[in-house]
């Protein structure tokens, strides 16, 4: 089945001093697709994610979202884009410790101009389906690692983004919780019609995705199908 391309990187080059982090990388993400980017530490996989998400500007090459270039936009526009079209899930630390869970989820909506009442109402709708019923008023310090990641997933999805970027989303979780979290992340993302880019070095995590690419020395090496990785790895 041919998928329409949501996000595309073409000939991406990024250098840090003499080090070449990305050496002309090309990558396309289909609508509703879950893509795993794997690679050892320092291979350039996080840099690739940062370039695709408009966090970093590549030194050369293009990044297109739904056909429109985003790498040439100014910081303000890219910030807005990240807020409205992208969602982010990190290893840890992305929730504001001062805010209760529901306000953490509502924050992107409020930043988008929604009234607080409406934002919190819409945020609450995510708690039941993500297995967080009753946790709305808890603060991040009162949640387990897995619960906090689910709140982060809700926050990433609440604005209805086109792409979710996840950087080692289960890195701080035990295997069982990591399994549940990935399941939830992939399911919820697809259920909402968004695409997913997961950066990981964990084969078990990559197996949840539709496709895997490997970054090595700043180059993308098309990987095997996820089910094959498990067999060979």
């Amino acid at each position, binding site marked *: 089945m041919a998928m329409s391309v949501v996000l595309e990187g073409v000939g991406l080059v990024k250098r840090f001093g003499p080090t070449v982090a990305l050496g002309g990388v090309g990558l396309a993400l289909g609508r509703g697709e879950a893509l795993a980017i794997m690679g050892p530490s320092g291979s350039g996989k*996080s840099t690739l994610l*940062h370039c695709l998400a408009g*966090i*970093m500007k590549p030194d050369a090459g293009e990044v297109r979202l739904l056909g429109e270039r985003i790498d040439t936009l100014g910081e*303000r526009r890219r*910030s*807005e*884009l*990240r*807020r*409205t079209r*992208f969602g*982010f899930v*990190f290893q*840890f*630390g*992305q929730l*504001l*410790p*001062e*805010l209760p869970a529901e*306000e953490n989820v509502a*924050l*992107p909506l*409020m*930043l988008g101009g929604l*009234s*607080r009442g409406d934002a919190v109402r819409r945020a609450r709708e995510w708690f039941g389906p993500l297995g967080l019923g009753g946790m709305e008023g808890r*603060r*991040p*310090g*009162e949640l387990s690692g897995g619960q906090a990641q689910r709140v982060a997933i809700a926050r990433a999805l609440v604005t209805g983004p086109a792409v979710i970027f996840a950087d080692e989303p289960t890195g701080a979780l035990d295997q069982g919780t990591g399994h549940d979290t990935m399941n939830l992340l992939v399911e919820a993302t697809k259920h909402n019609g968004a695409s997913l880019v997961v950066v990981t070095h964990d084969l078990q995590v990559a197996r949840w995705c539709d496709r895997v690419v490997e970054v090595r020395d700043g180059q993308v090496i098309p990987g095997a199908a996820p089910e094959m990785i498990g067999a060979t790895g």
Partner: protein
Amino acid sequence: MSGIFGLAWRLLRGGGRRGMLGSALTVVAVAVSTSLLLFAVAANLAFQGRADREAWRNPVAAARDAVAIQAVHLDHVDDRPVTVVDVAALEPGAPAPPGLARFPAPGEVWLSPALADLAKRLPANRLADRLSGKGGGLIGDAALVHPDELVAVRGQAPGSPVMTAGLAVDGHDDIAPTRISGFTGTRTDNAIGYQILALIASVLMVVPLLVFGGAAARLTVARRDQRLAALRLVGATPGQVVAMTVAEAVITAFAGAVLGAALYLLMTPLLTRIEIGGGPWFVADTWPGVLPVLAVLVVVPLLVGLSAVVGLRRVVVSPLGVAKRETPPAMRFVRVVALLAVLAVVPTLGMGAGVGVVTVVLSLAFLAVNLVGPWVVGLLGRIVAASARRPAGLLAGRRMIDDPRAAWRTVSGVALTGFVAGFIGLLTPGTGLLGQADATNLRLAVPPAKAAALSEQARERLATAGVRATVTVKAGGGRGKVLVAALGTSDVAVTDRARTALDGLVPGRSATTAADDDRSGFRILDDVRTGTVTVLAVSFLVAIASAGITAASSILDRRQTYALLHLAGTPMKVLNAARRTETLLPLAVMGGGAIAIGMFCALPFALSTMNVSGLVTLLVCVGLGFAGVAGAGAASAPLLRSVTANPAPRPD
């Protein structure tokens, strides 16, 4: 122990750019505190020095074995007081007065450098003619209160009229001829008054300094919490952790203290120009001495180390270090009760209350305001969070609820200075208190028996000098008579010529106007104002520096959160607006509250209702305080930009 010191030093040096920035903030904070502490110490010692240098002119009568006679009276020139000291040796070996190379021979006149200079610049008939005599030389600094002081020492024979006249001392600062055994003298009441005022000013400055020092110490600890908890995890004993913390804090603080001492030395040329007590200061006055400086260099790092240990308790108790962030319990209302209890005592105070009682009540009120601060911040946080419609308000409100002490720390310095400003603002004396005294009539107390003859002489002398005046004799206090020369003008040149003409008419006395007699009163009021402005300037400087450093440190502490928020698309202006709200709102409420409380505490001592200069002082303070804190917050915006520019924030 040297191993611990070595490890602490390596950790300090290996802290990376942000770690170094954090240490630099601590160094700056300690440096500012140290230099101001030195200022406070030096100011007290300087007033003590002035009192000691002036004491020789306040003679103590010798019980027996007098070696000299000393009389002192005030003359005036160019609307400035001239202290004239007449001395006569009773025996050949009489000791020389301080600042003089030898005992002045009869007929010799010694002048202070400023007086000698003035005598050269003004026409002789205004000043020099009054100082006629054999030039003795210049009076040294050891005998002068300040470099611009006008002093003349005249040598007299023991039997001369000046040294034998039984003067009617009538409320002037004049001192009748006194037989003395030496020039030790005793401190004047005036000098002691200044010393007390300096002490009060120091106390008012030290409180914000302590707040600041505490913030600086906590600043080191907050960053080290996590790392020291990790050390605990790998088996460091609580004793080792404490030793390392102390070592690190002491190393940093020592660097800050040395920098602060250097900073103070650089400031001294400016400090000598602060005019108090009628003139500026000798450079030597601003040097507190080797021992006090060494003491400050030792005590400051130790205090910072101690404060760091107190902040570390939690880490030492648990290797897990920083507790999980849970909803903190609300601050206890008892804090407010404490403040109300202290305030309830204030109206019972009055002019009659002892200095000790007043100091204790003021200190308690000060502390109570500091205690209530976090409670109010927490309350404001709940109100702001509940009513916030925009993300910035929500973020600010939640942060104030989460850690009201931290939010209070940023503004506490300025708010507490508000207390001082409120207190001083109500007490600032207006010049209206003394009124405008007459400067057209020169008055001279004369012995009643010679009144008629002396007034005739006065007429002749004034006419010879070409000064038009009407001379009359009026009844003075008691049985005394006062000769009054109505000049019909307050032109200072004419008055000076008249003074010169009347000089020596009554031995050991000088003619003065009512304005001359009020001058020392005005000078004290002026000095209180100068002191007020100095204390407020120092307090605000400290408070604003404190706000800036705390704001920067708060960004460093929360850099990961800020970076991730920015990464997820939160506009920088929302982050900055949240930071502004969480400082300026508590500042407005608590600063205003502290001013009101300060004024309330000053009520029992207020001589009159608030005057214009007090109101102006207060308004300037409010404006500066707000602008300062807002500016300090804005100054840290580039730091926020820099920490959010990091695309891959990780906890370190």
